């Protein structure tokens, strides 16, 4: 009897874990999942994952990978990759066997919602500043709960430098009402 019931409970437990732990599809980028695991006391906004590509396992089968370092020619050709491109390629960050995850140097798999841990492996000082709130963006309450923005909200992980954007309108120049001594070229 025990041999039948125990695996059933284990399977049910795993099932619950999968249901609760997996990222929800169709989440809008604005909702902070309140039950999401708060790593080191940091609550982040959901990662800006494009519904065109995510979940990646739609195309990339779990457990299947081609580890040959190469220039991609068939898919993902729109990605501009200039993030230490001489020494790195895709699978140095993306977990080869589960493309919905990233992998750390230790081999630990993390979700996209904790991508900052991956960035922090190389960008140590920036990561420490980010955790205190000195680098990057936090919104919320200065004396209470804060929501952290992920690195990837500002930095394209494949081409991280901040690109110039359109500014908002410049201020109006002051215009007086000069009488007699005004200048003609205003």
């Amino acid at each position, binding site marked *: 009897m025990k041999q039948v019931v125990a695996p059933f409970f284990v399977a049910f437990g795993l099932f619950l874990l999968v249901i609760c732990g997996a990222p929800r599809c169709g989440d809008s980028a604005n909702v902070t999942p309140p039950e999401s695991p708060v790593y080191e006391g940091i609550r982040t906004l959901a990662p800006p994952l494009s519904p065109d590509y995510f979940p990646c396992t739609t195309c990339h089968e779990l457990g299947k990978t081609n580890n040959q370092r190469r220039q991609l020619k068939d898919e993902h050709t729109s990605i501009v990759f200039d993030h230490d491109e001489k020494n790195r390629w895709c699978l140095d960050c993306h977990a080869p066997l589960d493309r919905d995850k990233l992998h750390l140097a230790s081999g630990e798999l993390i979700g996209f919602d904790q991508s900052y841990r991956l960035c922090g492996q190389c960008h140590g000082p920036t990561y420490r500043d980010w955790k205190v709130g000195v680098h990057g963006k936090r919104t919320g309450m200065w004396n209470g709960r804060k929501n952290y923005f992920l690195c990837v909200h500002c930095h394209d992980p494949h081409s991280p430098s901040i690109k110039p954007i359109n500014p908002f309108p410049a201020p109006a120049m002051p215009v007086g*009402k000069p009488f007699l001594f005004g200048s003609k070229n205003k």
Partner: protein
Amino acid sequence: MNPIVNFVKTCTSIWLRGNKYYWGWMIFLVLLIISGIAAYSNQVVHGLIQTSMRDQVSWGFYIGNFTFLVGVAAAAVMLVIPAYVYHWEPIKEVVLLGEMLAISAIVMCMLFVTVDIGRPDRMLHLFPFLGRPNFPNSLLSWDVLVLSLYFLLNLIIVLYILFTSFSGRHYNPKILIPLVLISIPSAISIHTVTAFLYDGVVARPFWNASILAPRFLASAFCSGPAILIILFQILRKVAGLKIKNEALAKIAELMAYAMFVNLFLFGAEMFKEFYSHTEHVIYAKVLLFGVGGTKVHYFMWPALIASFVAFILFLLPKTRNNFYTMNIGCLLIWFGVYTEKGMGLVIPGLTPDTLGEIYVYSPSLTEFRVAAGIFSIGFLVFTLLVKIAMPIMNMSETNSRKKIGHTNT
């Protein structure tokens, strides 16, 4: 009959009596005043945007005129000391006319400040008990206090002298002399406080110089008495004021020394700016050479030349004693100091602004009309006061002679 009513009635009758020049002058002034009131009403309704002042240059023509006129008010009373020291004959008249000029100048000062502030309906906030003045920190609160006291002091002295002369009584020296003596440090105080008002502003390096207070006093003393010189000559012809040529020449000589100090202090300031050549030299450059389209330097050089020429004219006895050159000197001095202490102080102080921006300020039509109206009010007050001064002083002389037993003229 009530002596006060009698006094008022006599004054009114004197005011309504005059030749065509008098009436022409009064009508001219009244027209300018009406134009000024109309322009100010426009400014009250639409806001100070009718001026050319903006955030970058937040003080302009009104405050420049105010600064110059405070100097005139201070200097007019300063004539009391030399009048006493040099034993000028009509000392009473000199003091009286000096104080009358001071009253007119203070009236104009107060009006210039009133038209400059954004909420004149909240003026009462400046005064103790009704408002919440910022003593002792704010120099503007001090300025309100000393200007009001100076105004009241001069008004009391003038009315006292006029009323006692009118009544045929001799003034009581125990009352008058202390008041007149107090008015002298009071005169110095109003201009020093105004200088400190600029001096204490750390954000404006052109103003934040210790030399500003002595410069203000020197330029006040060399410009204020100028109008009195011209006035004394007019009254000598028209109303029989018995002031000697030597007295007028002495005033001019004192103005020459004051002008020397003024030019010297200005030169000292310019040396420090251009020799040290820090970033702050840009303000002096705005004043003398123009930067980014500013126009003050077009007026400043003529003003400096006028001041220097006036200095020479008053220094040399030959030109000092010649009334043509002396009067020309008076006009040149007024132009020189008016520019240097008016726009030549306010505009370079605020251009470029604290963030380095250059906004070229040039007064608007509203500002010119309101300023013309205020000057006309000042001239009107002065004309009215002077017009009653001479007959009443003469009246008193006649009355006192009668009492002693001389036959009247």
